[in-house]
């Protein structure tokens, strides 16, 4: 099949899209700079114009500043199930599917009544109990973004469902303003969730100035018994000048690592 240049205004999106309708900054930048390198997939379905079934993101970014788009056109008529299958195959050839896409495969297979179990890579998704449960839920947009981008691990992203919209706004704003690594985000969300479990407001903690203050204040609130002991221990440690002590009172560990620094 040859690559053709198809005018944007002749293309419509099929309703078999698996990815979230969200365009990451890095893809926008890349398309602006280099254009669309990997052609999108279209079908004519015997009608006028073209139906897009793979490359939704490239298309939605490209249509903002391109007149035509590189595409491979399938002349034969494709069923929605075939479009889903080809879309999955194409994506799998270059990357892993996001959690959001896996969930959407289950949803779309049900909507279009597709029997996709004969394809082993899809069968494992369709048989996964946890994914099936997730497919039954409607998540707020921000959770879908995290599930789609992988910016948060699955558990942290899903645990955001226990936050209300206002709280979700605080969390995403904090992530926008202060740089947290992926694992720090995981810790932060876990601590915030525990604050909620204690029926307390999360806002006051997120208003702290920096990462350290946010995490410290949360730990004090979540682990009051442990934090008190830790404070006592650190005060004592300062007095005897024992040096660095590598430990976390927030995990039970069979070992305590003592690092004694001898000056000169």
């Amino acid at each position, binding site marked *: 099949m040859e690559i053709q240049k198809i005018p944007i205004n002749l293309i419509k999106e099929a309703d078999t899209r698996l990815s979230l309708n969200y365009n990451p900054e890095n893809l926008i930048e890349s398309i602006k700079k280099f254009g669309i390198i990997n052609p999108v997939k279209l079908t004519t379905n015997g009608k006028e114009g073209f139906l897009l079934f793979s490359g939704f993101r490239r298309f939605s970014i490209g249509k903002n500043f391109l007149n035509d788009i590189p595409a491979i056109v399938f002349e034969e008529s494709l069923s929605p199930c075939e479009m889903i299958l080809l879309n999955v195959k194409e994506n799998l050839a270059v990357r892993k599917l996001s959690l959001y896409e896996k969930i959407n495969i289950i949803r779309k297979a049900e909507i279009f009544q597709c029997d996709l179990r004969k394809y082993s890579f899809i069968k494992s998704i369709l048989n996964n*109990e946890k994914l*099936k449960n997730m497919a039954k839920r409607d998540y707020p947009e921000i959770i879908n973004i995290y599930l789609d981008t992988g910016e948060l691990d699955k*558990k942290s992203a*899903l*645990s955001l469902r*226990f936050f209300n919209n206002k709280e979700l706004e605080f969390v995403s704003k904090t992530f926008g303003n202060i740089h947290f690594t992926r694992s720090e985000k995981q810790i932060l969300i876990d601590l915030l969730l*525990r604050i909620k*479990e*204690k*029926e307390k407001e999360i806002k006051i903690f997120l208003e702290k100035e920096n990462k350290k203050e946010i995490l410290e204040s949360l730990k004090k609130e*979540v*682990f*009051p*018994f*442990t934090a008190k*002991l830790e404070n006592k221990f650190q005060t004592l440690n300062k007095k005897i000048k024992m040096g660095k002590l590598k430990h976390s*009172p*927030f*995990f*039970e*560990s*069979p070992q305590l690592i003592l690092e004694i620094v001898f000056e000169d």
Partner: protein
Amino acid sequence: MKIDYLFVSKEALKYPITQNIIKERKYEISTLDQIREKLNSGKIEKSRALLISTFPGNFIKDCPCTPGYVSCGYKNINFAYNCPLNCSYCILQEYLTYPILTLFVNINKLKNEITDYKKSHEYIRIGTGELTDSLIWEKLYPFSQWFINLFQQFKDIIFEFKTKTDFIENFPELNKNENIIVSFSLNPEQLKREELYSVTPQKRIEAMKKLIKMGYAVGIHFDPLIEHENWEQNYKTLIKNIFDSISPKKIAWISLGSLRFTKDLRWQIKDNHPHSILLKGELIEGFDKKYRYPFLLREKLYGEIIRFLKEYGAEDLPIYFCMESEEMWKRFLKVEPETEKINKYLYDSAKKALKAKI
């Protein structure tokens, strides 16, 4: 236990227990996969469905304990899976292999299995309460009588029923009982909403009292111990109530285990029990990656509970820990934290309680 959907596997149909249960009940021959499909499509309600099936492997299993903590050497007979009592802390909420209440009726093979097992094991302590409540099935079939009859043929094995119910109507009076004990898991009545469909602690204590009169020894499991408002006072009252009703001499063993649960269970608790107080506790990550209270908080809990047990019960009660660290054992208990020694200690204490006259 209300059963609206009764499924029977083809293999289970020929067993007398199945025939007894299905008579006058509507049932459907079904496989596990078919049941799963029905569950997924919302055609049946999980908590109201029962599968009668056969178990292909051995019934006797080592109690799995948890990595990094001390095991007591207990054994399980898993003749059924799941439980309708709906306790907020229950691990069965995330048990997916058999998604509904499941009863295995090919237990007639147990006699041979036990005979073989005995050849390579001694001081066996075994029970039916790990993956189900031992007595929730009594309204369907008198399993208590069945197990008592079986284990009366193996008097050197201590057999334990473990329950949060008071379904003791099928228990026969025993003139001579050398090995059957009935244990009750107990928590203060203030935590009743964490054990939604269990009977009240007072009813469980009354059942214990009756069983002792009928010739049984009893076990008590304070598990999970839950830190909550006024926990000292509430556990003190509970323990006082127990010893106002029963003699410490007839207690085979008392286990203490503080609240712990897997990371996955946390989500089940949030979804299934939004009003539970469990997640409000100060929970850290243990050696086994499960959530549990910090060591010093657990120490405080155990210290107080043991003090109450000694104050209202007796100085030398056979207390042990469930899934606890060596360090904790050394702080509170006389028996060394080694599985064989613990098992022998508890085996002997059960024998002593069974012999005790009141």
